[in-house]
């Protein structure tokens, strides 16, 4: 079943969840406190897990229930818990090194969403999918991608950068549940697992950063240039 064939109720449910995730991305963009940031990320992951389950129910893809459970477990519980532990150990609870104030980054984020909308509605027009949930999914996917890059660019704290990368991946995850729900199970499983490994790696690296370089913000890492 392709995105255009979902019943209207399902389509509006998916739209609601996709927009909710996008709003949570804005919550992350606007917050200075790392804990809020993390909570928003966890909530976003739970929404995406719910979305997986809903797509599985309406589209008749039983394997998506499994994916939903794993998403909730890994991205909704394990990853936030790991990052929370790092936050507790580092004793940094707020973003101190932002290059752009949260309010300005919200404005830029809104502009990026507009851009994503223009691109995806153009793609949607060539496919004759105007107004369908697929275009919305594409918009949210691209916007979360761009917002993730914005977070990486304007935030200096090492933990914010990890979360920025996780938002990038969340965007792809959300989009792919609606656009390509039939993507082979194995692939999604491995990608989930892969993310866990990434965060483990980041955790180790952050520890190295603190013990050997003495800093937790990436802006101080400017010895290697040229």
């Amino acid at each position, binding site marked *: 079943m392709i995105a255009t064939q979902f019943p209207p109720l399902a389509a509006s449910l998916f739209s609601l969840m996709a927009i909710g995730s996008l709003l949570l991305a804005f919550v992350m963009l606007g917050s200075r406190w790392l804990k809020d940031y993390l909570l928003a990320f966890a909530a976003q992951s739970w929404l995406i897990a719910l979305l997986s389950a809903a797509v599985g129910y309406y589209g008749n893809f039983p394997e998506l229930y499994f994916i939903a459970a794993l998403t909730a477990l890994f991205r909704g519980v394990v990853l936030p818990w790991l990052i929370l532990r790092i936050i507790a150990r580092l004793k940094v609870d707020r973003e101190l090194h932002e290059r752009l104030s949260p309010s300005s980054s919200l404005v830029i984020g809104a502009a990026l969403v507009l851009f994503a909308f223009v691109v995806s509605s153009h793609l949607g027009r060539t496919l004759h999918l105007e107004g369908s949930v697929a275009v919305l999914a594409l918009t949210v996917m691209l916007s979360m991608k761009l917002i993730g890059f914005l977070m990486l660019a304007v935030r200096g704290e090492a933990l914010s950068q990890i979360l920025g990368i996780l938002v990038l991946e969340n965007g792809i995850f959300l989009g792919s549940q609606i656009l390509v729900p039939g993507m082979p199970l194995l692939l999604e499983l491995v990608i989930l697992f892969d993310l866990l490994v990434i965060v483990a*790696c980041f955790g180790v690296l952050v520890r190295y950063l603190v013990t050997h370089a003495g800093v937790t913000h990436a802006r101080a890492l400017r010895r290697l240039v040229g």
Partner: protein
Amino acid sequence: MSSESLIAVILLAPLAAVLLCLLVQHPRPAEFFNLAAAVVVFLAVLALLPHSLSGPQRLADDYLIVDALSTWGLLCVASVYLLSSIYAIGYMRRLSEDARLHRFYALFAGFALTTLSGPLMNNVGVYWIAIELTTLVSTFLVCFELGAESIEAAWKYLVIVSAGISLALLGTVLYYWAGSFALGPSYSLTWAALREVAPRLDPAIATTAFLLVTIGFGTKVGLAPMHTWLPDAHSEGPAPVSAMLSGALLNTAMIGIARFLQVSDAAGSGALPRAAVVALGAFSLFVAALFIVRQTGIKRLMAYSSVEHMGVLALGFGFGGPLGIAGALYHMLNHSLNKSLMFFGAGNAMRAYGSKRIGAIRGLPTRMPVSGWLWLAGAVAITGAPPFGLFRSELTVLRAGLRSDHAWAVYLMLVLLIVIFVGFLAHFRAMYFERAPAAAEELQSEEDIERAQPLRDFPDAWCVVPMALALIPLLALGLWWPDFFARCFAAVAANLSVGGRS
């Protein structure tokens, strides 16, 4: 042996080395396990080469592909893995990190395993995962020495490459989506399936997906302007790791771009995809030329030279046609051998002088007679001077470019290659023929961050022999284009042409 068992050997040998290194936890046996795995892998790849000419074979339930292109990639990886495993024995013993050395070799073999599995992946999504895994393993090799700089380099490497490569995942999802309109919601996204469905893809989505994938894997290849992690990671890792990163890893991501170019040709996306790859290649050459001319760090010089050569590869694949593909593949092998040689030499000089700065390295012929001259020969080779292999492969790429629609890139490439030739060899002239500056100590205290003391009896045979082993084939490939290689390139060109045999 059949190709199934050869592939099994190629993948299981490094895996066995990883496990044994972790099990035994002693530095000397770990060296041996890693070297043994490298030798076994190299021999197995040599045995696999003739098999690959008979056409693509799919193994392991369609997840692995053995064709001329993937085998060629394996040959590059296996050569570098063998050379750098020999070199690592001599180099790593001098770091006085014996207590952690078994972990280094376990990671090193694991890095080789992930790099070897990249080109073999037949499923586009699994290929993405393999490339991502190479990053995760090699990050810990880059920061093995635990200095502030190497951790900074590892951090930048992990952040930039993971962010960049997530664009490739987005592109892959878009390809899958576009294909699902023709093939239904659930299908297996192999290279062959993607190529066959390509003519039915929506051109706008196919082009968008191609650009995303190219930027994503281009980050991993180190094409400018996504190259910013490369000089840091390559210059801060131990020298054998730098050689693996530059000679082996970058190629495996380039193979993906070559395969996606074929898909976009089949999709009839027009001139844009190839123009984009050519432009990225030309821009990489340009950026590399700027940074090579004014470089002060010896390993960063080598790293920017990698950016340059990846640019040449991108130009070769971007120009396309049998000649462009042949030139790019030939260049891939030549660059792998040559860049290993250059990083080995740089590692030797760095340890012998206790500094990473070009300015601190003076009077090389007296300090390191044998490896010094080998290094100089390598420097001449890597700037594309005859009679070495890179001269021939760059010439082939230039010829291919003149036949394509992108002749402007050929003239630009020619000018930039000359600039790089002059800039690169000027550094070597200073290191070989200039006297040490009187104010050396002052400079040392000011900006030298290297904590290592100069080593007296360095480099030893472990660190010199692999340089010679790299230089000999490089010279041979410059004088003689083996007929077997020509058949190999023809097979790859046939596979990569529109509607290639499958």
